[in-house]
Structure formats: C-alpha cells, structure tokens
C-alpha cells in the first residue's frame, strides 16, 4: 500500500439515487488526514452540489474507479464491479444479507469490500452507523409524506370556519426511523401513537411525547433488533392491529427483521377499515412491505386510502442525507488509514471485521 491513499467518489448510477458518498465538507477533513480525493464530474449534481464545490474543498475531478478506495452509496452494479481495480477497497451499502451474489462478484474481482450496513451497532461505531443516519432521514421524510398525502390537516386548528381535530398518526415498528417519524408528526401537531414488539420501546415512544399501543406481544431479538414472530403471534398481531388501525388517519410502518422479509402488519382488510382519505406510508417496501397492499416504490389508492411505499426516502433529501452518510464514511475511513494517510486495515478490530464482506485474498 502506498502513502497518500486516493479515495474515489463515483456518480451514483442507481435510478432515483440522488445521494453522493462524500460531500465537500468531508473532503476537506479527509484532505487534512492526508488522503487524496478524486470525484467523478457531476457526482454531486443530483444532490445539488456543483463540481466547483468539490474542487474548492481540495478534491480533483477525474476517474474515481482508479482510486485505492472507492466510496459509494448504493451497491455497485455489474459494470461498476467490473470497473473496480483488483486490490482496491470498496465502501458502501452492499446489501450483504439480501444480495449475497454481489459479495461473491466482488470477491472474484479481488476487491476488499466494507458494507456500511454491517458495521456493528456498538457505541464506539455510532459515528459510522449509516443505517441510523439514513433511517433518521427516512423517518422525517415519512412523516412529511404522510402529511402530504393526507387530505386532512395534521395539527388541530380552531378557526372561524370550524374546528379541525388533530390527525392521529400511528407508527408501527419504532426503531430509529419510527422514532423520528413519531417526533416529526408530533411537531406538526398530530396525535401520535407508537407500536413495537420490543417492550423497551414503550419508554422510547413516550420519550418523544407519543402514546404507546400495547398489544401484549413481546418479541425482542438480539442486538437491539426484533425477532420474527411465530405464526400464532403474527395472526394475533394482525387481528389486533386491524382493529386499532381503524381509528388512525395515517399509519407509518417501519417494521423490519434483519435479513428477512418484512412482517405484514397492515392487512388489506385493515386498510379497508380506514377512513377515506387516510394514508399508509410503508418504509419496509424494500423487504416486501408491512402492508398487504404495498407495491414497493408505488403509490396506490385502495378504498380511498393512499398506500405509499417510497423506496429510497433518504435520496429525496439528498444534501443532508449525503452529508450524514459522508460523515459515516469518513469515520470508517479514518479507522482504515494511519496517520500518514496510508491504508492500514486492522482486521482484528471488531468494527472492521464486522463491516468487511470480502477480503482481497
């Protein structure tokens, strides 16, 4: 490995992906750590970051694929895998659990790859936790999306033309995204309620001023995640949720179990029970959705209820989403290089080991 490692930032190729892996502010910081940054021309345009800004912060424009370390947001497509230099390092979301083929291709290419989603969620690695940072954006946007599609006000308003009651918002699955969705909806004046299968979430739900919906089903898994429910539990949950959901104007679902398809929480019947004009925002679309009527990436209207399943919400707020992601990447990069900016990867480190999906043989 040579000193002064070069970091390449390609333009994202996935449809609708407006994020970029590094932002100028972070480029500056990496420069201070003796790293060179090569940015593909136009890489930041979708996030409204002009090339100038990168140059200004000390990056050069050029071919990112020739770099020692390539940092991306979305997993590389086949062409991009092919463009990677053998022996180089790739950092980005790599979907190792849902798309194991990608890891294989990378291994074959002789690339050392670190998946952002595999970084262990331990205290020390919080600054690299891109799942959290992007889920946070997604939660905020989900609440906005619900407000946008609802034909009603979120806040209560007493006016000369009558009083509008506050919208009732239910969040199913209260992880990082769910909490932020609850908090944002409440800020807008909605009456918020949260539900999860992990019992410790009750306090967290209350801590953002929301109410806790208790269905009596507990399913805490390991590492702060939930476990999958048994069939009996699932049925009971659907039945009870179906009843509860009727009273809500907007339902935001974020329930996921790592590496599995998302549990179905909102049945077609439950949607039918909702008032006309209500909204379901399903953030679990990528893993199949929490709502039976979800068509990932689409907005469908059924029984006058809007069911939206945006696939990549963080990309709809590209500037801050990129900025937060870039900071995560920066924290990981700083773990991988020494003081001189030379790559020096310690594979015994818990974080490095956890994140690494393939290693140059």
């Amino acid at each position, binding site marked *: 490995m040579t000193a002064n490692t070069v970091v390449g930032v390609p333009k994202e190729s996935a449809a609708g992906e407006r994020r970029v892996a590094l932002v100028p502010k972070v480029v500056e910081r990496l420069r201070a750590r003796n790293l060179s940054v090569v940015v593909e021309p136009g890489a930041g345009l979708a996030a409204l970051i002009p090339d100038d800004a990168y140059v200004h912060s000390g990056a050069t424009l050029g071919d990112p694929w020739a770099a020692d370390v390539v940092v991306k947001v979305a997993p590389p497509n086949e062409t991009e895998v092919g463009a990677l230099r053998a022996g180089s390092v790739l950092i980005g979301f790599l979907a190792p659990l849902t798309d194991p083929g990608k890891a294989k291709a990378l291994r074959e290419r002789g690339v050392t790859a670190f998946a952002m989603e595999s970084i262990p969620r331990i205290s020390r690695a919080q600054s690299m936790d891109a799942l959290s940072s992007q889920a946070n954006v997604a939660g905020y946007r989900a609440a906005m999306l619900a407000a946008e599609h609802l034909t009603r006000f979120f*806040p*209560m*308003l*007493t*006016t*000369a*033309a*009558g*009083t*509008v*009651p*506050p919208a009732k918002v239910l969040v199913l699955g209260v992880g990082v995204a769910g909490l932020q969705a609850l908090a944002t909806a409440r800020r807008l*004046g909605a*009456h918020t309620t949260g539900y999860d299968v992990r019992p410790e979430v009750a306090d967290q739900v209350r801590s953002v*001023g929301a109410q806790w919906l208790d269905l009596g089903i507990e399913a805490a898994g390991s590492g702060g995640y939930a476990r999958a429910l048994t069939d009996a539990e699932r049925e009971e949950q659907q039945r009870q949720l179906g009843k509860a959901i009727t009273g809500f104007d907007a339902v935001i679902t974020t329930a996921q179990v790592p590496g599995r398809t998302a549990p179905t929480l909102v049945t077609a019947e439950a949607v039918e029970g909702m008032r006309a004009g209500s909204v379901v925002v399903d953030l679990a679309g990528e893993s199949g959705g929490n709502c039976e009527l979800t068509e990932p990436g689409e907005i469908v209207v059924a029984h006058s209820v809007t069911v939206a399943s945006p696939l990549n919400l963080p990309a709809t707020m590209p500037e801050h989403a990129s900025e937060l992601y870039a900071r995560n990447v920066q924290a990981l990069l700083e773990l991988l290089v020494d003081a001189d900016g030379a790559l020096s990867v310690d594979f015994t480190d818990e974080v490095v080991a956890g994140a690494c999906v393939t290693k140059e043989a």
Partner: protein
Amino acid sequence: MSRETGIQLLYIVAFALFIYGLMGLTGPRTAVRGNWIAAAGMGVAVVATLLTPGLGNWWLILLGVAIGTAVGVPSARQVKMTAMPQMVALFNGVGGGAVALIAWVEFRESAGFAHAPGHVAVASLFSAVVGSVSFWGSLVAYGKLQEVITGRPVGIGKLQQPLNLVLLLVSAACAGVIIGGGDAEVLILGLLLSAAALGVMVVLPIGGADMPVVISLLNALTGLSAAAMGLALDNTALIVAGMIVGASGTILTNLMAKAMNRSIPAIVAGGFGGGGGAGPAASGDQTVRRTSASDAAVQMAYANQVIIVPGYGMAVAQAQHAVRELADMLEARGVEVYYAIHPVAGRMPGHMNVLLAEADVPYERLKEMEDINREFSRTDVAVVIGANDVTNPAARTDPSSPIYGMPILNVDESRSVIVLKRGMAPGFAGVDNALYFDAKTSMLFGDAKSSVAEVTEELKAL
C-alpha cells in the same frame, strides 16, 4: 404559688395563644383555627384579670361587658359581607376610644398622675393621644366607607399639613404640662380633643380607595396605645398583645400599601383620590378594579373550575409555556382547568392551537366556543389572558359595534373574571370592552408572560 404569680402565668399563656393564633392567621388553611386560638387567649387574659385580688365594682364591670356584648354580637353577626371593612374600622375605633377613656379616668383618679412614676404618666398620656386619634380617625373612615361621609377626599388644601402639626403640638404640650405636674382637667381634655381633631383631620382628606390602608394603620396605632397602657398598668398581657398588634399591624399596613401601589406617607399626606383604585386608563368615569398576582392566585387556588381564555396578547407575550405551567399547578391542587378557544382568537386561524400545542397542553383540555359557553355559568374564575374582542359583550348587545354579531365567549357569565393585559388598550376591532368595568371583573395589568409567572409563584407560596 401566689395568686399574683398565677395571674402572671395565665397572662403568659394568654399571649402565647395570641402569638400562636396569629401565626395561624397568616395561612389560608389555618386561619380559622388561628382566630379561635387567639380568642381563647383573650378569654384566658380576661379570666386572669378578673382573678386580680381586691377587684371590686363588679356591677360596673358587668354592665360594661353586657352592653358591649349586646352591641357587638348582633352587629358582627348581621353586618353584610360588603360592609365588613367599615365594621373593622368601627371595632378598631371603639378599642382606641376605650384606651383614651381609661387614660382619662386614670388621670382623674390619680390627680393628674401626681404620685405615679414618670414612665406611667408618659405611657398613659401617649395611650390617650393615640387612642383618641385612633377613635376619631376610625369613625371618619367608617363614615366614608359606609358613605355617610363622602368617599372623596375632603381637605383644606395647603393648610392641611400645618393645621395637623398644630393639633399634634397642642396635645404634646398638654401632655408636657401634665407630666410637669399639671393636674387641671382641662389639660387632659385639651389633649383628648386636639388628638380627636387630629384624627379627623388626617383621615378626612384621604380617598375611599385608600381606606383599607388607613384602617390598618389606625389598627397598628391602637395596638401601640394598648402596649403603652400595659406599660402604665404594668400588665404583661397588655404589653405583649399591644406590641404584637403594633408591630404586625405596621408590617401589614406596609404590605397592603405595596399591594395597592401606594406609599403610606403619601396616603397620610392625603394626596390620593377617591377612585376605587382606578386603572391606568379608566375610560370615561367608569372605573376598573385592579388586582394583584397574589389575590389572583388565591382566587384561582380555591376555585372548583377555572377557564383560561387565551387571546392575541398571550401570543404576543409568548406566554403559552407560562400559562401551561399555571394550569398544571392548579390541576395539581384539584382545580378543574379548561382552555376556551375562540375561533378567531389571535391573528390567524388556529393561532391558539399552535401555541398551546407547543406548550404541550393536552387536547382534551381545549374546548371549542360552543362547548365551553355552556360551562361559564358553572365556573368560578375565568382567566382572560390577552384576549379582548373575543370576550366583548358588545358583540351581543350593541348593534352599532363593529363586532356586533360575532359570537363571543361568555366569560361574563362566570362567577368572577380576571383579565390579564398590559393596559386598557383595545384589541383588533378597536372598541372598548364593557367586560372590564363589570363588577366581578378584576384586572391584572402587565405583560401576560410575567403576570402569569407571578401568579404561579404566588400559587406555590400558598
């Protein structure tokens, strides 16, 4: 133990009961009990005195007590609540009168204090002067409050002060001559009469609104005269009781004056007017009643139900958090609190909702106009915080008013109304609000945020 000692011990018990009772009187919870404890002390003191060896003239005593009881009990029982202040003035006056009369009799009995030690004469004469001032001053105060005499200041202008000084000097001169050995009855009469004139002259020029402070001041003076009489008679119970009343009465007078934004010297100098504590901008001849944060606090604390009526002024003052805190505090005391949200309160639709949501007021506490209007008649206190037009009864009653026809919150149906605003300025529609001149309305002037905070603080102290 000698009988004397026993009497002295009873006196100690008596004043201990006075003090204990008085401590009770300073808190609303213990006040009733405190009053009766003090009364028990009085009973002990009277019994102790009656045990004095060699006491005679029983029929005299009995007659006096009987007359006193016959007059005192029914008048205390039957006086209307609204006439209480003048009753207190009257009771205070007769107390002062008693002191003056006793001093007079002592003078006569002792041939002008011929053989008494110097301090006895001084104390007796002091009590005579103060007692007489107190008696006549209280009578004038009574007359003003009862509207037998005009409530407006009556004075002789610039000559008032010199005249009062002359009267004071005359009584002092009489006293001096008596102490110096004079024993002519005319001396004591001169003393009593000049003191009487002084009492009348000092109180006459003071406006009816300031009377409570004046009565309190005369009350403290009567206390001091009682203490002086105690010194003259070498009676501990009198000394302690009189002095306690003198000291606490002085503090109390000060507190009252402060609460009314008056200074005692200014009041006594007779500079103040007859308006009933008029607000900063009483419109026309109508007067408004001001209140203080602590009074407002007591009123709310002892209510069963309070309705808060927020308006644009609450928004301008950004008082929403303070208001929420006040409501929390009231609820913790068991008071039912609701917020009456008028559809056009503020300056944009839903203005109050936005603010109250920010302050995290539970939705269930917010009531729409139609719902809450039924509640006002069952409400003890409506607290209007920076709202104006939305509470203006002119909208119901005055077809010429620009707001005529607008539905309003019927705050005037509640048992009492406290309005928090900075002054008498009108609201958006630019019209006066008759609510402010309603007899059951009191105004707490000041920025809504600070007023609410003050009330909250007072509540905590209760």
